[in-house]
């Protein structure tokens, strides 16, 4: 059985590296190294040492100019050759929150035209103008080739925390290619007790008891409209996570590393312990590498 080596790339302002490393260790990775990007730029470390490259959450370079932009440019200008080799060898790349913004702004996601490194999308300021921090329901796309979301439950529940999480696309052509290519791996959906298109005010009528009763049911229909706050950012098609055509490069705005123990769930004392949805994503990555 092959050993799994995971790189958690660090840079100024990244602040979820340790949680993400913990998640990969829980998932069974034998080697998990949080390493600063300068080690790779200066050549003291090599991307080729690893099976999985992870860009974790945080505020790289303060998100001073826009979320993930400076780190995306730094990687494009100083590490792109190594990244191309890494992806060419069939290895995995995961971007969480700020890391997702970096992958999108590098042109690695969604890559609806394979091999193209054109920025086809962006992750922009939330429509609310606020930092949105809460648990959200997501619908997994079973038709997506994404290796990170394989065999997960249809509905996933993990936290989101961002000020710039609105996925926007460069053109209608890109949008037209996303669906057939299976690029949309995760979408925000209404909670189980909220009807499709229902606003938060309308949903407020639902009692807490009804919510608890419905908690195990399937979530709302993503083909309809998922309204704020259930879709926290105003993303096109309620997009929460995107992969490339191979399914080996994946990014998402929510934080799966924040739901890796049953007790992370906000209602675990009432609803009991269950398999943490976030941990499933990391296990999928580790299992993929073992089987590759």
């Amino acid at each position: 059985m092959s050993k799994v080596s995971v790189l958690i790339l660090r840079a100024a302002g990244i602040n979820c590296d340790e949680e993400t490393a913990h998640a990969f260790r829980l998932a069974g990775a034998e080697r998990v190294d949080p390493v600063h990007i300068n080690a790779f730029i200066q050549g003291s470390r090599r991307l080729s040492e690893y099976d999985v490259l992870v860009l974790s959450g945080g505020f790289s370079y303060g998100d001073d100019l826009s979320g993930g932009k400076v780190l995306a440019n730094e990687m494009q200008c100083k590490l792109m050759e190594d990244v191309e080799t890494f992806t060419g060898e069939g290895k995995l790349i995961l971007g969480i929150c700020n890391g997702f913004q970096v992958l999108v702004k590098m042109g690695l996601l969604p890559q609806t035209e394979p091999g193209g490194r054109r920025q086809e999308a962006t992750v922009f300021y939330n429509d609310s103008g606020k930092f949105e921090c809460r648990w959200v329901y997501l619908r997994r796309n079973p038709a997506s080739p994404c290796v990170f979301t394989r065999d997960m439950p249809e509905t996933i529940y993990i936290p989101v925390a961002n000020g710039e999480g609105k996925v926007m696309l460069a053109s209608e052509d890109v949008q037209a290619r996303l669906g057939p290519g299976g690029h949309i791996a995760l979408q925000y959906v209404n909670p189980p007790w909220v009807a499709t298109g229902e606003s938060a005010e309308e949903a407020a009528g639902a009692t807490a008891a009804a919510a608890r009763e419905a908690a195990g049911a399937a979530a709302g229909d993503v083909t309809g409209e998922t309204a704020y706050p259930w879709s926290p950012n105003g993303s096109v098609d309620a997009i929460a996570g995107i992969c490339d055509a191979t399914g080996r490069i994946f990014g998402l705005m929510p934080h799966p590393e924040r739901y890796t123990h049953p007790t992370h769930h906000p209602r675990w004392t009432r609803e009991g312990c269950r398999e943490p949805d976030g941990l499933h994503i990391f296990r999928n990555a580790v299992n993929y590498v073992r089987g590759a």
Partner: protein
Amino acid sequence: MTAESKTRRIAVVNRKEVVDAVGEGLRGDILDLGIGSVEGVRHVRLYALHGALSAAELDRITSGLLTDPVTQEHLEIADAGLPVAPGEWGVEVWFRPGVTDAVGETALKGSRDLGVAGIESVDTGRGYILAGPLIRSQVDTICRRLLANDVIERYACYEGGQ
């Protein structure tokens, strides 16, 4: 030919079809000040790039670093200020000399990452275009109480069409 060292002022704004959440939020804040005649606010990011930059290098910084290609557009603005139409007010807020500009330092690092060696420093500021039948005293109130922190920032406001 070597480019001459000078300052280029860049304004970055959301494209018209893109939600300007900052501007919308500020409009509500201005209404909360009791100034009901404000009809709209557009938020502008301002950058002053100092150095010897060729046209290609300037474009590399503005298009490749400062402007989101999907949601924003940029323009170079003259010393006269933001392009404000009659019936609008332009407001610029910049740090006072000596105040650390952390975002400017990030923009400098990002510019150098792009291979632009001639960049010497970057100052950052905020711009606002206020629409509505406002008078100067109201705009001054908005600037002092909402848009600028007078301890560390200075502001300038001007009326369109003047």
